[in-house]
């Protein structure tokens, strides 16, 4: 493989299930060593895309090259070099933590000795060494997720695919997972992940694409997307009853854009503090909050919807 060829290369990639189009012709490239994210709400086509990259779901159309190979013909060869953290855990709950790792390592053809050594290393890495000989069933959701991540690393993959790695975890457990993923990224592992949490995308991704209804709406680094598609700050207004109708004219030239959500109004501006007294005076909101723009705002701008409906 040439030094410049992307690790994953997709052009016009499609996935159809009968009459349903899950992925509608998307283009993207993932480079070695980067953390690449697919951000979007449920049903945007993120998981279908991940399953195609994971070589378990053949594309319905377009080009897909992974590690400079064809996923349809070289599936086993590619999968030997991938690590997969699926959305739903596929751990065997009756086996112990360590046995789950050992079995999985054997699927890759690792020798018994190597896989034992590797299991101990990985349990150390995901901080589960003290639970090594416990059954998986009673472990917490966060621990199971960490075990799934450890398992995906057993073959020392070049690319780690994570489908919603922290969905369903409490905030503390999420931070532990993020911390481990960040360490992996520092070690040079390429991360490809899907998420519908903008904070996760901001924390982990060097580059991401925003997906909606099977298509890619925009792409870039989180900061770049925010700069390009949103303003520096956002003023959030909440009202005790229905939000009044406002438009850009209400604030003269101070507001670049307005989003009206069921429970609040978002004013996009470069100087939030200057807008607060004006908003108080003209609209009499119940509460006012000034914050920085996030990916959520980018998403709202692109799709007219919030990420987590």
């Amino acid at each position, binding site marked *: 493989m040439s030094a410049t060829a992307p690790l994953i290369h997709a052009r016009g990639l499609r996935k159809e*299930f009968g009459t349903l189009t899950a992925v509608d012709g998307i283009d993207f490239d993932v480079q070695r060593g980067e953390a690449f994210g697919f951000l979007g709400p449920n049903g945007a086509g993120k998981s279908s895309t991940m*399953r195609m990259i*994971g070589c*378990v*779901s*053949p594309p319905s159309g377009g080009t897909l090259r992974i590690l400079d190979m064809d996923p349809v013909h070289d*599936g*086993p*060869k590619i*999968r*030997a070099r*991938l690590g*997969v953290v*699926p959305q*739903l*855990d*596929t*751990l*065997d*709950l*009756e*086996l112990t933590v360590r*046995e789950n790792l050992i*079995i*999985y390592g*054997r*699927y*890759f*053809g690792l020798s018994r000795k190597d896989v034992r050594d590797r299991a101990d290393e990985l349990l150390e890495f995901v901080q589960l060494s003290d639970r090594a000989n416990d059954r998986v069933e009673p472990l917490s959701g966060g621990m199971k997720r960490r075990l799934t991540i450890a398992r995906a690393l057993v*073959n020392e993959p070049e690319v780690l695919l994570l489908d919603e790695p922290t969905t369903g975890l409490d905030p503390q457990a999420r931070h532990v997972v993020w911390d481990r993923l960040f360490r992996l990224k520092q070690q040079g592992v390429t991360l490809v992940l899907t998420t519908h949490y903008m904070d996760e995308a901001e924390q982990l991704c060097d580059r991401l694409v925003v997906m909606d209804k099977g298509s890619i709406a925009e792409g870039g680094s989180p900061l770049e997307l925010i700069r390009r598609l949103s303003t520096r700050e956002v003023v959030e207004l909440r009202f005790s009853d229905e939000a009044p109708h406002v438009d850009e004219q209400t604030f003269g030239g101070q507001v670049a854009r307005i989003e009206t959500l069921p429970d609040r109004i978002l004013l996009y501006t470069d100087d939030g503090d200057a807008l607060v007294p004006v908003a108080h005076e003209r609209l009499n909101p119940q509460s006012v909050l000034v914050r920085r723009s996030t990916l959520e705002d980018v998403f709202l701008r692109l799709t007219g919807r919030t990420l987590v409906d």
Partner: protein
Amino acid sequence: MAYALRSFEYWAYSYRRVWRGSIVTSIVGPVLYLSALGVGLGTLVNKGNKLGVPYLDYVAPGILAATAMQIGTFESSYPVMAAIRWTRQFHAMLSTPLRVRDLIVGHQLYIACRLTMVGAIYLAILAAFGALHSPLALLALPVVVLIGLAHSGPVSAFSAWLERDEGFNALFRFGVMPMFLFSGTFFPVTRLPHPFREVAYATPLWNGVDLTRHLTLGTATVWQSLAHIAYLVLWIAVGHVLARRTFQRRLVL
């Protein structure tokens, strides 16, 4: 084949959890059957010696073959559904270099091992009851494996196709039970009225029972045995093809 062995290892690993209970069941089962049917019932039936041999010796190979069918069916029912839907272990395997065919072959290999173990224990007990009339009985062991696999292949395909586990009730009640009772296990199929007799001849179990019986009683002939074996192999092959299709549909979307 190397890949299939890797998926075989998963089943072997899981079996380690239950092997003690499983061995006890494999010993107690035949002892109970042979005492009740062979010794108990056997003294009442077959008075005129129409069967030509003691009832115990007649029924013992039938039960052996029927047990092979039950193991083949059971091991490829709930465990296959679990690996697809509950533990999702098949999905885990498919995110490694393993392919759909490796999943199927590995699992059938494991079932073949279970059949060999149970078959060997059974034959030893049959020998202890004096029900083996010929050294040909040793050949019943590979036949037991064939009988089991002739059922486990098609049932695997069925399990992957099934949406909910309620379907297994129908399989056991309307498939396994009637076959167990009417495929020549306990009495000759010739006692059945006409359309049913032909149905019985068409079952893989009857072919298995007849072959096993001729082997343990030492009355097997080459051509008849080969015909039975060919028929069982046909079921194994068809089962494998069907399983490939239903597994593919269920696991590779």
